[in-house]
């Protein structure tokens, strides 16, 4: 197995505030890594670090053997918050097409018929083909999220970064997206931040617990002491009502 993402003693500061502390992490090719942790624990920052949107204050980062930001086109990124201009006069089709843009042929660039074919296929796969000509301002949160996933997938990236990709989706769309991700995972490394323990337990191959520092990285099996450490709150709050359990059974069940 070869390592596609490598972090070595990485610290990230936003001004005086530390977001990540001494992170060392290796991610193998074709891994499906789930990242969990409390709000403000640095999960999004970790993804941005790999995407090249945030520079480390110290430590080293390699993505596909190069510094982050030097492997564009190979990294797909679906952000958690839409920092984009929802009012921009773009249709769904045009939005997803931008995923086919690469830095190499920007001069007099035109999207090719092949680009459109790829976009059409992705839209069909994600059940958003009917929305093709819809303006993005008219989309609901869940539809927009699927459009952004499509935009990342149409790049055919080697590494896919997902920041709570299914937060606005209903149960059906959610399981649909995860079955697609499972397919893609056969030749794509996926790194995903999620609060959804059910999703984490049933879909990921490995797990990382992050709260400024890395508390755990390994197989998706956890014990309550560790989760308590990461979240700093009773584990039951997180683990209950979950179809597939992440945790081994506790001594006693607590019914809420």
């Amino acid at each position: 197995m070869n390592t596609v993402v490598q972090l070595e003693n990485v610290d990230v500061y936003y001004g005086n505030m530390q977001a990540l502390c001494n992170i060392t992490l290796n991610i193998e090719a074709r891994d499906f890594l789930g990242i969990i942790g409390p709000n403000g624990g640095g999960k999004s920052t970790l993804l941005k670090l790999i995407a090249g949107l945030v520079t480390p204050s110290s430590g080293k980062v390699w993505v596909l053997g190069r510094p982050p930001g030097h492997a564009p086109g190979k990294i797909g990124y679906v952000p958690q918050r839409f920092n984009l201009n929802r009012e921009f006069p773009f249709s769904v089709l045009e939005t997803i097409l931008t995923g086919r843009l690469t830095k190499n042929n920007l001069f007099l660039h035109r999207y090719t018929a092949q680009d459109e074919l790829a976009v059409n296929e992705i839209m069909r796969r994600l059940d958003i083909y009917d929305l093709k000509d819809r303006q993005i301002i008219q989309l609901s949160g869940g539809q927009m999220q699927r459009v952004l996933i499509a935009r990342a997938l149409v790049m055919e990236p080697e590494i896919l970064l997902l920041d709570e990709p299914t937060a606005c989706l209903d149960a059906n769309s959610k399981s649909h997206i995860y079955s697609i991700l499972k397919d893609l995972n056969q030749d794509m490394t996926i790194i995903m931040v999620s609060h959804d323990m059910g999703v984490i337990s049933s879909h990921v191959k490995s797990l990382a617990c992050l709260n400024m520092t890395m508390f755990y990285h390994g197989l998706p099996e956890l014990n309550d002491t560790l989760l308590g450490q990461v979240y700093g709150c009773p584990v039951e709050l997180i683990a209950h009502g979950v179809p597939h359990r992440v945790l081994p059974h506790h001594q006693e069940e607590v019914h809420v």
Partner: protein
Amino acid sequence: MFEALLSYNFLQNAFFSAILASIACGIIGTIIVEKKLIMMSGGIAHTAFGGIGLGYYLGIEPLIGAMGFAIFSALGISQLQNRTRISPEVVLGMFWALGMALGILFIAVTPGYPPDITSYLFGDILTVSRVDLLITLIMDLIIVAAIGCFFNAFKTYLFDEEFAQVIGLPVSRLENLTYVLIALTVVVLIRVVGIMLIIALLTAPPSIARQYTNSFLNTILLSILLGIIFCSAGLWVSYLLDIPSGAAIIIIAVSSYFLISMFKKPAP
């Protein structure tokens, strides 16, 4: 009007200037409305006044001074924004007033009779010269070439800067280019509507155009057409009634926006 247009050179110049200015205005106006850079553009325009003053003081063409100040302030504001974590509005406000202050200062210390600054503040399309036309034409070519050659990159950048960075687009270069193009447009428009009135001519056409089209390119094209209509109408009214042309153009543009928005059915 048409007879007068054929027989008077200054009217022909004014008319061509209206067309050329509308091209720059339609393209850059659409960009600043989409990218929410309206106050930024106002700031650049007002800072340019410092350059006009400096031009007078040094005895060079004031518009050249204005261009220098406009480009310098556009890049300066973006640099300061990126470097300090202060709100852009703060830096903008300071540049805005500093430019005006420097302009007045330079004009005050220039020996001799004070020049007519009203035409720079409020525009005077009827005094546009051949040289002004040539400058406008060159600016237009630069703007059209820059945006036209990198159209898809610009659209992606305007839509989602973060994603543009992830896929490796040269985001900071696109940003600086956008700011420089705003500065050039401001210089072009100083002659037509003047520093104080520029913002309205930049924003009214795209705001109307957006109500009728859902395409970025069509917004630009429609804005250019509307700009030409507003400028020529303003020019005509100002010639007919002998009122200031800049004021006439802006009043027509803005009242058109209000009228159209009022009578347009709300979008479904």
